[in-house]
Protein backbone atom coordinates (compact mmCIF):
# COMPACT_ATOMS: atom_id res chain seq x y z
CA UNK A 1 0.00 0.00 0.00
CA UNK A 2 1.25 3.45 -0.90
CA UNK A 3 1.68 5.49 2.23
CA UNK A 4 0.26 8.98 2.10
CA UNK A 5 2.54 12.01 2.45
CA UNK A 6 1.85 13.97 5.64
CA UNK A 7 2.34 17.71 6.06
CA UNK A 8 1.90 20.26 8.86
CA UNK A 9 -0.70 22.91 8.11
CA UNK A 10 -1.34 24.60 11.44
CA UNK A 11 0.32 25.22 14.79
CA UNK A 12 -0.45 26.64 18.21
CA UNK A 13 1.67 27.18 21.29
CA UNK A 14 1.38 28.25 24.90
CA UNK A 15 4.91 28.59 26.24
CA UNK A 16 6.37 30.35 29.28
CA UNK A 17 8.24 32.83 27.05
CA UNK A 18 5.41 33.54 24.58
CA UNK A 19 1.86 32.57 23.71
CA UNK A 20 0.83 32.25 20.06
CA UNK A 21 2.89 31.29 17.03
CA UNK A 22 4.03 34.74 15.86
CA UNK A 23 5.12 35.93 19.33
CA UNK A 24 6.78 32.58 19.96
CA UNK A 25 8.83 32.83 16.77
CA UNK A 26 10.07 36.29 17.81
CA UNK A 27 10.92 35.00 21.30
CA UNK A 28 12.87 32.10 19.78
CA UNK A 29 14.95 34.38 17.59
CA UNK A 30 15.63 36.73 20.50
CA UNK A 31 16.57 33.87 22.82
CA UNK A 32 13.98 35.09 25.30
CA UNK A 33 13.90 33.21 28.59
CA UNK A 34 10.57 32.18 30.13
CA UNK A 35 12.01 31.19 33.51
CA UNK A 36 10.99 33.15 36.59
CA UNK A 37 11.19 33.00 40.38
CA UNK A 38 7.94 31.80 41.99
CA UNK A 39 7.32 32.79 45.57
CA UNK A 40 4.89 29.94 46.25
CA UNK A 41 7.74 27.47 45.62
CA UNK A 42 9.85 29.38 48.15
CA UNK A 43 7.02 29.40 50.70
CA UNK A 44 6.68 25.63 50.25
CA UNK A 45 10.40 25.07 50.94
CA UNK A 46 11.29 23.91 47.44
CA UNK A 47 15.04 23.77 46.74
CA UNK A 48 14.36 24.92 43.19
CA UNK A 49 12.13 28.00 43.40
CA UNK A 50 12.09 28.82 39.69
CA UNK A 51 10.09 27.50 36.78
CA UNK A 52 8.35 28.26 33.52
CA UNK A 53 4.66 29.21 33.69
CA UNK A 54 2.81 30.71 30.69
CA UNK A 55 0.99 33.94 31.48
CA UNK A 56 -2.56 33.42 30.21
CA UNK A 57 -4.66 36.59 30.17
CA UNK A 58 -8.38 36.65 30.96
CA UNK A 59 -8.94 37.91 27.41
CA UNK A 60 -7.28 34.81 25.97
CA UNK A 61 -9.25 32.56 28.33
CA UNK A 62 -12.50 34.17 27.17
CA UNK A 63 -11.57 33.54 23.53
CA UNK A 64 -11.07 29.83 24.13
CA UNK A 65 -13.36 28.85 27.01
CA UNK A 66 -17.01 29.75 27.64
CA UNK A 67 -17.97 31.25 30.99
CA UNK A 68 -19.36 27.85 31.99
CA UNK A 69 -16.16 26.06 30.93
CA UNK A 70 -14.19 28.50 33.07
CA UNK A 71 -16.29 27.77 36.16
CA UNK A 72 -14.10 25.95 38.69
CA UNK A 73 -11.42 25.48 36.01
CA UNK A 74 -8.17 24.68 37.82
CA UNK A 75 -6.48 22.27 35.38
CA UNK A 76 -3.71 24.46 33.98
CA UNK A 77 -2.66 21.83 31.44
CA UNK A 78 -6.20 21.83 30.07
CA UNK A 79 -6.06 25.62 29.79
CA UNK A 80 -2.73 25.58 27.93
CA UNK A 81 -3.71 22.65 25.67
CA UNK A 82 -7.17 24.08 25.01
CA UNK A 83 -5.67 27.36 23.81
CA UNK A 84 -2.82 25.80 21.77
CA UNK A 85 -5.14 23.24 20.13
CA UNK A 86 -7.68 25.85 19.06
CA UNK A 87 -4.94 28.16 17.77
CA UNK A 88 -3.58 25.33 15.60
CA UNK A 89 -7.07 24.60 14.30
CA UNK A 90 -7.65 28.21 13.27
CA UNK A 91 -4.12 28.51 11.88
CA UNK A 92 -4.91 25.56 9.57
CA UNK A 93 -8.06 27.39 8.40
CA UNK A 94 -10.31 24.62 9.68
CA UNK A 95 -13.92 25.56 10.40
CA UNK A 96 -15.36 25.96 13.87
CA UNK A 97 -18.98 24.97 13.45
CA UNK A 98 -21.63 22.49 14.53
CA UNK A 99 -20.72 19.88 11.89
CA UNK A 100 -19.05 16.59 12.74
CA UNK A 101 -15.69 16.21 11.00
CA UNK A 102 -15.37 12.45 10.60
CA UNK A 103 -11.95 12.71 8.94
CA UNK A 104 -10.17 14.57 11.74
CA UNK A 105 -8.94 13.10 15.00
CA UNK A 106 -7.02 14.21 18.09
CA UNK A 107 -3.97 12.72 19.80
CA UNK A 108 -3.18 15.12 22.61
CA UNK A 109 -1.07 13.71 25.42
CA UNK A 110 -0.22 14.65 28.96
CA UNK A 111 1.67 13.29 31.96
CA UNK A 112 -0.99 14.07 34.54
CA UNK A 113 -3.90 16.42 34.12
CA UNK A 114 -5.48 18.81 36.59
CA UNK A 115 -3.35 18.29 39.71
CA UNK A 116 -4.74 21.47 41.28
CA UNK A 117 -8.26 20.18 40.64
CA UNK A 118 -7.24 16.84 42.19
CA UNK A 119 -5.90 18.66 45.23
CA UNK A 120 -9.22 20.47 45.65
CA UNK A 121 -11.05 17.15 45.29
CA UNK A 122 -8.83 15.35 47.81
CA UNK A 123 -9.50 18.06 50.40
CA UNK A 124 -13.26 17.85 49.88
CA UNK A 125 -13.23 14.05 50.00
CA UNK A 126 -11.12 13.99 53.18
CA UNK A 127 -13.55 16.49 54.71
CA UNK A 128 -16.32 13.92 53.99
CA UNK A 129 -17.73 16.29 51.38
CA UNK A 130 -17.48 14.22 48.20
CA UNK A 131 -21.05 15.30 47.39
CA UNK A 132 -19.74 18.82 46.75
CA UNK A 133 -17.09 18.01 44.11
CA UNK A 134 -19.25 19.36 41.29
CA UNK A 135 -19.54 18.13 37.73
CA UNK A 136 -16.11 18.96 36.33
CA UNK A 137 -13.83 17.04 38.71
CA UNK A 138 -13.67 14.03 36.40
CA UNK A 139 -13.41 16.05 33.17
CA UNK A 140 -10.49 18.09 34.48
CA UNK A 141 -8.55 15.19 35.96
CA UNK A 142 -9.00 12.27 33.57
CA UNK A 143 -5.82 11.89 31.50
CA UNK A 144 -7.85 12.17 28.31
CA UNK A 145 -9.59 15.34 29.54
CA UNK A 146 -7.56 17.45 27.12
CA UNK A 147 -8.28 15.41 23.98
CA UNK A 148 -11.92 15.09 25.05
CA UNK A 149 -12.18 18.88 25.46
CA UNK A 150 -10.58 19.63 22.08
CA UNK A 151 -12.48 16.86 20.29
CA UNK A 152 -15.77 18.28 21.55
CA UNK A 153 -14.88 21.90 20.93
CA UNK A 154 -13.85 21.19 17.33
CA UNK A 155 -16.25 18.38 16.44
CA UNK A 156 -13.60 15.76 15.67
CA UNK A 157 -15.07 12.43 14.61
CA UNK A 158 -11.96 10.35 14.04
CA UNK A 159 -9.82 8.80 16.81
CA UNK A 160 -9.74 11.06 19.89
CA UNK A 161 -7.24 10.01 22.55
CA UNK A 162 -4.47 11.08 24.93
CA UNK A 163 -1.14 9.30 24.97
CA UNK A 164 1.29 9.36 27.89
CA UNK A 165 4.99 8.54 27.75
CA UNK A 166 6.57 11.02 30.17
CA UNK A 167 8.83 13.55 28.46
CA UNK A 168 8.49 11.92 25.02
CA UNK A 169 4.69 12.35 25.05
CA UNK A 170 4.48 15.23 22.56
CA UNK A 171 6.83 13.68 20.02
CA UNK A 172 5.04 10.35 20.36
CA UNK A 173 1.67 12.07 19.80
CA UNK A 174 2.91 13.48 16.50
CA UNK A 175 4.09 10.06 15.34
CA UNK A 176 0.79 8.38 16.26
CA UNK A 177 -1.13 10.96 14.24
CA UNK A 178 1.39 10.77 11.39
CA UNK A 179 1.00 7.00 11.03
CA UNK A 180 -2.79 7.23 11.14
CA UNK A 181 -2.81 9.64 8.20
CA UNK A 182 -0.07 7.71 6.34
CA UNK A 183 -2.27 4.63 6.42
CA UNK A 184 -5.36 6.49 5.22
CA UNK A 185 -7.32 6.12 8.45
CA UNK A 186 -7.67 9.89 8.93
CA UNK A 187 -7.20 12.97 6.75
CA UNK A 188 -6.20 15.29 9.54
CA UNK A 189 -4.98 14.83 13.10
CA UNK A 190 -4.61 17.49 15.77
CA UNK A 191 -1.57 16.33 17.72
CA UNK A 192 0.22 17.80 20.68
CA UNK A 193 0.66 17.65 24.41
CA UNK A 194 0.30 19.71 27.56
CA UNK A 195 1.61 19.81 31.08
CA UNK A 196 0.21 21.41 34.25
CA UNK A 197 2.33 23.95 36.09
CA UNK A 198 3.14 24.40 39.75
CA UNK A 199 4.34 22.70 42.91
CA UNK A 200 2.16 19.59 42.74
CA UNK A 201 3.65 18.58 39.38
CA UNK A 202 7.18 19.70 40.10
CA UNK A 203 7.50 18.52 43.73
CA UNK A 204 8.48 14.97 42.86
CA UNK A 205 11.34 16.23 40.70
CA UNK A 206 12.53 18.59 43.44
CA UNK A 207 12.54 15.57 45.78
CA UNK A 208 14.70 13.65 43.28
CA UNK A 209 17.25 16.51 43.61
CA UNK A 210 17.50 16.84 39.84
CA UNK A 211 16.44 20.50 39.62
CA UNK A 212 18.92 23.41 39.94
CA UNK A 213 18.76 25.13 43.36
CA UNK A 214 21.60 27.65 42.74
CA UNK A 215 19.69 30.12 40.56
CA UNK A 216 16.73 31.26 42.65
CA UNK A 217 18.09 34.83 42.43
CA UNK A 218 19.05 34.46 38.80
CA UNK A 219 16.31 32.40 37.15
CA UNK A 220 17.01 33.26 33.51
CA UNK A 221 20.54 31.85 33.82
CA UNK A 222 19.45 28.51 35.31
CA UNK A 223 18.71 26.35 32.28
CA UNK A 224 22.08 25.41 30.75
CA UNK A 225 21.82 22.50 28.30
CA UNK A 226 25.20 21.24 27.00
CA UNK A 227 26.97 23.55 29.44
CA UNK A 228 29.91 22.54 31.64
CA UNK A 229 28.07 23.94 34.67
CA UNK A 230 24.61 22.51 33.88
CA UNK A 231 22.96 21.97 37.26
CA UNK A 232 19.76 20.12 36.39
CA UNK A 233 16.61 20.81 34.42
CA UNK A 234 14.36 23.77 35.16
CA UNK A 235 10.72 22.66 35.58
CA UNK A 236 8.31 24.16 33.11
CA UNK A 237 4.85 23.82 31.60
CA UNK A 238 2.66 24.75 28.65
CA UNK A 239 1.37 23.14 25.47
CA UNK A 240 2.19 22.74 21.80
CA UNK A 241 -0.20 21.71 19.03
CA UNK A 242 0.16 20.84 15.35
CA UNK A 243 -2.33 20.00 12.62
CA UNK A 244 -1.09 17.07 10.55
CA UNK A 245 -2.79 16.58 7.23
CA UNK A 246 -2.45 14.35 4.19
CA UNK A 247 -0.75 16.27 1.38
CA UNK A 248 -3.83 15.65 -0.80
CA UNK A 249 -6.16 17.17 1.77
CA UNK A 250 -3.88 20.19 2.29
CA UNK A 251 -3.67 20.77 -1.47
CA UNK A 252 -7.43 20.36 -1.91
CA UNK A 253 -8.03 22.96 0.78
CA UNK A 254 -5.29 25.18 -0.63
CA UNK A 255 -3.77 25.95 2.75
CA UNK A 256 -0.28 26.95 3.82
CA UNK A 257 2.13 24.06 4.36
CA UNK A 258 4.73 24.62 7.08
CA UNK A 259 6.74 21.42 6.66
CA UNK A 260 6.51 17.74 5.83
CA UNK A 261 6.83 14.85 8.28
CA UNK A 262 9.12 12.34 6.56
CA UNK A 263 9.19 9.62 9.18
CA UNK A 264 10.10 8.61 12.67
CA UNK A 265 10.42 5.88 15.23
CA UNK A 266 9.35 5.10 18.81
CA UNK A 267 11.03 2.54 21.06
CA UNK A 268 12.14 1.73 24.59
CA UNK A 269 15.43 0.67 26.11
CA UNK A 270 13.64 -1.83 28.30
CA UNK A 271 15.51 -0.47 31.34
CA UNK A 272 18.41 -2.78 30.42
CA UNK A 273 22.05 -2.16 29.36
CA UNK A 274 22.48 0.93 31.53
CA UNK A 275 18.91 2.06 30.96
CA UNK A 276 16.70 2.52 34.01
CA UNK A 277 13.45 4.14 35.05
CA UNK A 278 15.23 7.52 34.86
CA UNK A 279 18.18 6.98 32.48
CA UNK A 280 18.21 5.93 28.83
CA UNK A 281 19.72 2.78 27.37
CA UNK A 282 22.05 4.33 24.77
CA UNK A 283 21.78 1.33 22.44
CA UNK A 284 18.03 1.93 22.21
CA UNK A 285 18.48 5.69 21.69
CA UNK A 286 20.85 5.05 18.77
CA UNK A 287 18.45 2.44 17.40
CA UNK A 288 15.51 4.86 17.65
CA UNK A 289 17.35 7.62 15.75
CA UNK A 290 18.69 5.16 13.13
CA UNK A 291 15.27 3.66 12.47
CA UNK A 292 13.69 7.13 12.22
CA UNK A 293 16.24 8.00 9.51
CA UNK A 294 15.53 4.71 7.74
CA UNK A 295 11.77 5.31 7.96
CA UNK A 296 12.22 8.81 6.49
CA UNK A 297 14.28 7.35 3.63
CA UNK A 298 17.05 9.91 3.96
CA UNK A 299 20.82 9.68 4.46
CA UNK A 300 22.16 10.87 7.85
CA UNK A 301 24.38 13.37 5.96
CA UNK A 302 21.23 15.21 4.84
CA UNK A 303 20.34 16.29 8.38
CA UNK A 304 21.03 20.02 8.77
CA UNK A 305 19.77 20.58 12.30
CA UNK A 306 19.03 18.53 15.40
CA UNK A 307 16.54 19.66 17.99
CA UNK A 308 17.78 17.71 20.97
CA UNK A 309 16.12 16.51 24.13
CA UNK A 310 19.07 18.07 26.05
CA UNK A 311 17.60 18.88 29.45
CA UNK A 312 20.71 20.39 31.14
CA UNK A 313 21.82 17.36 33.13
CA UNK A 314 24.86 15.06 32.98
CA UNK A 315 22.95 13.06 30.34
CA UNK A 316 23.46 15.81 27.72
CA UNK A 317 26.96 14.55 26.87
CA UNK A 318 25.61 11.01 26.51
CA UNK A 319 22.86 12.24 24.21
CA UNK A 320 25.39 14.03 21.98
CA UNK A 321 27.53 10.89 21.82
CA UNK A 322 24.45 8.86 20.83
CA UNK A 323 23.67 11.29 18.01
CA UNK A 324 27.27 11.05 16.70
CA UNK A 325 27.02 7.24 16.66
CA UNK A 326 23.55 7.13 15.08
CA UNK A 327 24.46 9.64 12.34
CA UNK A 328 28.08 8.56 11.87
CA UNK A 329 28.97 12.25 12.04
CA UNK A 330 31.13 14.14 14.52
CA UNK A 331 33.41 17.17 14.91
CA UNK A 332 32.85 19.78 12.18
CA UNK A 333 30.82 17.24 10.19
CA UNK A 334 28.10 17.15 12.87
CA UNK A 335 24.81 18.98 12.11
CA UNK A 336 23.86 22.12 14.01
CA UNK A 337 22.12 21.31 17.30
CA UNK A 338 19.99 23.33 19.70
CA UNK A 339 17.80 22.92 22.75
CA UNK A 340 14.68 24.96 23.47
CA UNK A 341 15.08 24.01 27.13
CA UNK A 342 17.73 26.75 27.45
CA UNK A 343 14.87 29.24 26.85
CA UNK A 344 11.88 27.73 28.62
CA UNK A 345 13.19 24.86 30.75
CA UNK A 346 11.75 21.37 30.60
CA UNK A 347 8.01 21.39 30.01
CA UNK A 348 7.83 17.64 30.79
CA UNK A 349 4.96 16.04 28.85
CA UNK A 350 4.56 19.28 26.86
CA UNK A 351 8.27 19.50 25.97
CA UNK A 352 8.13 17.41 22.78
CA UNK A 353 5.24 19.27 21.21
CA UNK A 354 6.45 22.79 22.08
CA UNK A 355 9.91 21.86 20.76
CA UNK A 356 8.35 20.44 17.58
CA UNK A 357 6.54 23.73 17.03
CA UNK A 358 9.86 25.59 17.49
CA UNK A 359 11.54 23.20 15.04
CA UNK A 360 8.88 23.66 12.37
CA UNK A 361 9.23 27.44 12.70
CA UNK A 362 12.98 27.12 12.09
CA UNK A 363 12.36 25.01 8.97
CA UNK A 364 9.64 27.27 7.68
CA UNK A 365 11.39 30.60 8.26
CA UNK A 366 15.02 29.55 7.78
CA UNK A 367 16.75 30.25 11.08
CA UNK A 368 18.40 28.47 13.97
CA UNK A 369 17.52 29.84 17.40
CA UNK A 370 20.35 30.24 19.90
CA UNK A 371 21.38 27.99 22.77
CA UNK A 372 21.37 30.49 25.61
CA UNK A 373 23.30 30.06 28.89
CA UNK A 374 25.95 27.97 27.14
CA UNK A 375 29.12 30.06 27.44
CA UNK A 376 31.18 27.06 28.50
CA UNK A 377 30.34 23.94 26.55
CA UNK A 378 30.81 20.70 28.45
CA UNK A 379 34.28 19.26 27.64
CA UNK A 380 32.86 15.78 26.94
CA UNK A 381 30.63 17.35 24.29
CA UNK A 382 33.55 19.25 22.75
CA UNK A 383 35.36 15.92 22.47
CA UNK A 384 32.60 14.77 20.12
CA UNK A 385 31.43 17.79 18.15
CA UNK A 386 32.77 21.18 17.11
CA UNK A 387 31.73 24.23 19.15
CA UNK A 388 30.50 26.00 16.00
CA UNK A 389 27.74 23.37 15.72
CA UNK A 390 26.19 24.68 18.95
CA UNK A 391 25.00 28.18 17.91
CA UNK A 392 24.96 30.63 20.79
CA UNK A 393 23.46 33.38 18.61
CA UNK A 394 20.43 33.25 16.36
CA UNK A 395 21.47 32.35 12.79
CA UNK A 396 19.71 32.92 9.48
CA UNK A 397 20.05 29.59 7.76
CA UNK A 398 17.99 27.63 5.28
CA UNK A 399 17.36 24.19 6.72
CA UNK A 400 16.07 21.29 4.68
CA UNK A 401 16.01 18.39 7.09
CA UNK A 402 15.64 18.50 10.86
CA UNK A 403 15.75 15.63 13.35
CA UNK A 404 13.89 15.97 16.64
CA UNK A 405 14.13 13.49 19.51
CA UNK A 406 12.56 13.23 22.94
CA UNK A 407 13.40 10.80 25.72
CA UNK A 408 11.37 10.05 28.83
CA UNK A 409 11.25 8.34 32.20
CA UNK A 410 10.57 4.66 31.74
CA UNK A 411 13.44 4.56 29.20
CA UNK A 412 11.21 5.56 26.28
CA UNK A 413 12.38 7.29 23.09
CA UNK A 414 10.80 9.02 20.12
CA UNK A 415 12.46 10.56 17.06
CA UNK A 416 10.87 12.49 14.17
CA UNK A 417 12.40 13.61 10.85
CA UNK A 418 10.95 16.80 9.36
CA UNK A 419 11.54 18.32 5.94
CA UNK A 420 10.95 21.84 4.72
CA UNK A 421 8.15 21.34 2.22
CA UNK A 422 9.01 21.00 -1.45
CA UNK A 423 6.23 20.72 -4.04
Amino acid sequence: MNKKRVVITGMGVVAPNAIGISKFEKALQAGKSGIQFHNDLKELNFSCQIGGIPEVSQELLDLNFTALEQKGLLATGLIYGGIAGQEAWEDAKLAKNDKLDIDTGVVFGTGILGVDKLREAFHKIDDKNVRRLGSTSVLQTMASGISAFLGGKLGCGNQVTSNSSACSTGTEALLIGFERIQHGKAKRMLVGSCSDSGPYVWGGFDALRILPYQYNDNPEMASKPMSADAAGFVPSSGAGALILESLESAQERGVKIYAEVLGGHINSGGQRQGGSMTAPNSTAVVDCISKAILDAQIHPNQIDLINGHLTATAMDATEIENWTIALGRSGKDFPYINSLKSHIGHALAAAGSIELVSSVLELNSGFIYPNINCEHIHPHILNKIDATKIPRRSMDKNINILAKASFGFGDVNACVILNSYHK
Partner: protein
Amino acid sequence: MTSEAIQARLKTIVQPYVNHHENFENLSLESDFIADLEINSANLVDVVLDVEDEFDIRIENEDMEKMTNVKATVEVIQKKLS
Protein backbone atom coordinates in the same frame (compact mmCIF):
# COMPACT_ATOMS: atom_id res chain seq x y z
CA MET B 1 -39.68 33.29 51.43
CA THR B 2 -42.32 33.46 48.69
CA SER B 3 -42.28 31.11 45.75
CA GLU B 4 -41.76 34.11 43.46
CA ALA B 5 -38.72 35.32 45.40
CA ILE B 6 -37.15 31.85 45.33
CA GLN B 7 -37.87 31.52 41.61
CA ALA B 8 -36.16 34.86 40.92
CA ARG B 9 -33.02 33.77 42.75
CA LEU B 10 -33.12 30.35 41.06
CA LYS B 11 -33.24 32.05 37.68
CA THR B 12 -29.91 33.75 38.39
CA ILE B 13 -28.43 30.46 39.58
CA VAL B 14 -29.32 28.43 36.47
CA GLN B 15 -28.37 31.13 33.97
CA PRO B 16 -24.72 30.05 33.41
CA TYR B 17 -25.79 26.47 32.60
CA VAL B 18 -28.60 27.30 30.17
CA ASN B 19 -28.28 26.49 26.46
CA HIS B 20 -31.78 27.56 25.30
CA HIS B 21 -31.80 31.27 25.97
CA GLU B 22 -35.30 32.04 24.66
CA ASN B 23 -36.91 29.53 26.99
CA PHE B 24 -34.76 30.94 29.78
CA GLU B 25 -36.15 34.43 29.17
CA ASN B 26 -39.65 32.99 29.49
CA LEU B 27 -38.80 30.90 32.57
CA SER B 28 -41.89 29.69 34.47
CA LEU B 29 -42.67 27.16 37.20
CA GLU B 30 -43.26 24.59 34.47
CA SER B 31 -39.81 25.00 32.87
CA ASP B 32 -37.86 21.72 32.74
CA PHE B 33 -34.11 22.06 33.22
CA ILE B 34 -33.11 19.56 30.54
CA ALA B 35 -36.02 19.58 28.07
CA ASP B 36 -36.70 23.33 28.04
CA LEU B 37 -33.54 25.05 29.21
CA GLU B 38 -31.25 22.44 27.60
CA ILE B 39 -28.99 22.26 30.62
CA ASN B 40 -26.41 19.47 30.28
CA SER B 41 -27.50 16.71 32.66
CA ALA B 42 -24.04 16.66 34.29
CA ASN B 43 -24.54 20.30 35.27
CA LEU B 44 -27.66 19.52 37.33
CA VAL B 45 -25.38 18.67 40.27
CA ASP B 46 -23.77 22.10 39.91
CA VAL B 47 -27.20 23.74 40.02
CA VAL B 48 -27.91 21.88 43.26
CA LEU B 49 -24.57 22.92 44.80
CA ASP B 50 -25.18 26.54 43.81
CA VAL B 51 -28.67 26.35 45.37
CA GLU B 52 -27.10 25.04 48.60
CA ASP B 53 -24.69 27.96 48.68
CA GLU B 54 -27.29 30.59 47.75
CA PHE B 55 -29.86 29.51 50.36
CA ASP B 56 -27.45 28.08 52.92
CA ILE B 57 -29.23 24.71 52.96
CA ARG B 58 -28.20 21.09 52.47
CA ILE B 59 -29.97 18.99 49.84
CA GLU B 60 -29.89 15.20 50.18
CA ASN B 61 -29.90 12.73 47.29
CA GLU B 62 -33.65 12.04 47.47
CA ASP B 63 -34.53 15.72 47.11
CA MET B 64 -31.85 16.21 44.49
CA GLU B 65 -33.44 13.59 42.24
CA LYS B 66 -36.66 15.62 42.21
CA MET B 67 -34.97 18.85 41.18
CA THR B 68 -35.36 18.56 37.42
CA ASN B 69 -37.67 21.53 36.90
CA VAL B 70 -38.36 24.93 38.43
CA LYS B 71 -41.50 23.93 40.34
CA ALA B 72 -39.99 20.92 42.12
CA THR B 73 -36.82 22.84 42.88
CA VAL B 74 -38.71 25.76 44.41
CA GLU B 75 -40.69 23.28 46.54
CA VAL B 76 -37.53 21.58 47.79
CA ILE B 77 -36.00 24.93 48.71
CA GLN B 78 -39.18 26.08 50.48
CA LYS B 79 -39.31 22.85 52.47
CA LYS B 80 -35.68 23.23 53.55
CA LEU B 81 -36.13 26.88 54.53
CA SER B 82 -39.22 26.24 56.65
